[in-house]
């Protein structure tokens, strides 16, 4: 069932449709916000606020070309921009998902790598950051990202290339570990 149909059902009071929308879009929105903000908890705050706004919008939702996915990311992006003005990202200290239960040294190494990448990502200008998160982590195509950012595909490719150059430069001191370079 399409997002637009589900939203019509949500507008009519169907909680099952709301659950489907959450399952379909929450992980990506939450991930996007966590990557951009460099903080899972703040990312979840942004995701929650984004979906509360969707709840309010559902009754007056009108299908358009951009679609729900784009609307959600747009709201989350604006919330992230506001959030970033308030607080800098904190380092990963207790990341269950990268803990190696056997090798403590490997766990420490993974946490170090994740922190380095996260900080490098956080240092990027907002548009470069959004472009790399959408395309590299969220699977947007170049043209989808271009629509989202309201720029041409060429401009998206330019943003992505500059972002990757900056990331490579930021990760260079740890190149052996991170980039596999000698």
């Amino acid at each position, binding site marked *: 069932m399409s997002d637009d149909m589900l939203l019509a059902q949500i507008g009519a009071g169907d909680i099952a449709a709301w659950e489907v929308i959450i399952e379909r879009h929450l992980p990506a929105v939450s991930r996007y916000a966590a990557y951009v903000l460099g903080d899972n908890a703040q*990312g979840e705050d942004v995701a929650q606020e984004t979906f509360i706004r969707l709840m309010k919008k559902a009754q007056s939702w009108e299908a358009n070309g951009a679609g729900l996915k784009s609307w959600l990311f747009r709201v989350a992006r604006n919330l992230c921009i506001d959030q970033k003005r308030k607080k800098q990202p904190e380092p990963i200290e207790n990341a269950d998902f990268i803990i190696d239960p056997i090798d403590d040294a490997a766990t420490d190494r993974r946490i170090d790598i994740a922190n380095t990448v996260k900080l490098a990502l956080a240092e990027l200008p907002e548009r470069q950051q959004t472009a790399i998160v959408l395309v590299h982590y969220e699977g947007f195509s170049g043209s989808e990202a271009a629509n989202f950012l309201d720029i041409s595909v060429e401009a998206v490719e330019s943003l992505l290339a500059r972002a990757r150059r900056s990331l490579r430069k930021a990760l260079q001191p740890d190149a052996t570990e991170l980039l596999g370079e000698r």
Partner: protein
Amino acid sequence: MSDKIEPMTLDRLRELIEAYGANPERWPEQERGLAVVFIATSAEAQGLLEEAVALDRALDALPAPEPSQALRNGILNAFTPAKPVAANENDGLVATITRWRPRSHSAWHKAAAAAVMFGVLCGVGVSQVFTTTGTIVIAQQPFPQFIQPIPEQPLQNGVAALTLDGEIPAILANTVLQPEVTNDETGEDPEVPLT
């Protein structure tokens, strides 16, 4: 990049890899096939790809956080069912007042609500005592045993004019001085002069 399919070149492949990285799935669909073929035939292109693979691997070291159960529950609980449209939405003030209930269950809220209801009902009753013709009408009083019937009085050039000399207007004086008349004997409602 344009919609027109052009032959793949090393420069264009470099642009693709610098922008999208080493994974061909991220490259524009219409250029993907030609780019993969080009890489297979170019050592230089393969070198570009290797550099990009290293950066992709570093980026992938950043774990993908999953939304917590608390977040899911919080958003699920944010669901507010659509408000049904009332059939008698515009049926007036009285219906609105009678439908209204205090949201709080505290005693003083209930008392305040009762006082408001009482005041409104008394106000409605009083507003129906004086008519535009100057005739005093007692109609639909909520407490008829406390209200005396008042004989009909002619309008005397309006109440405002009569009060200029400081005297009590006759229309009001009569109301005050009228001896009390009740229908306590019959137990019936007092008569209501309508004209």
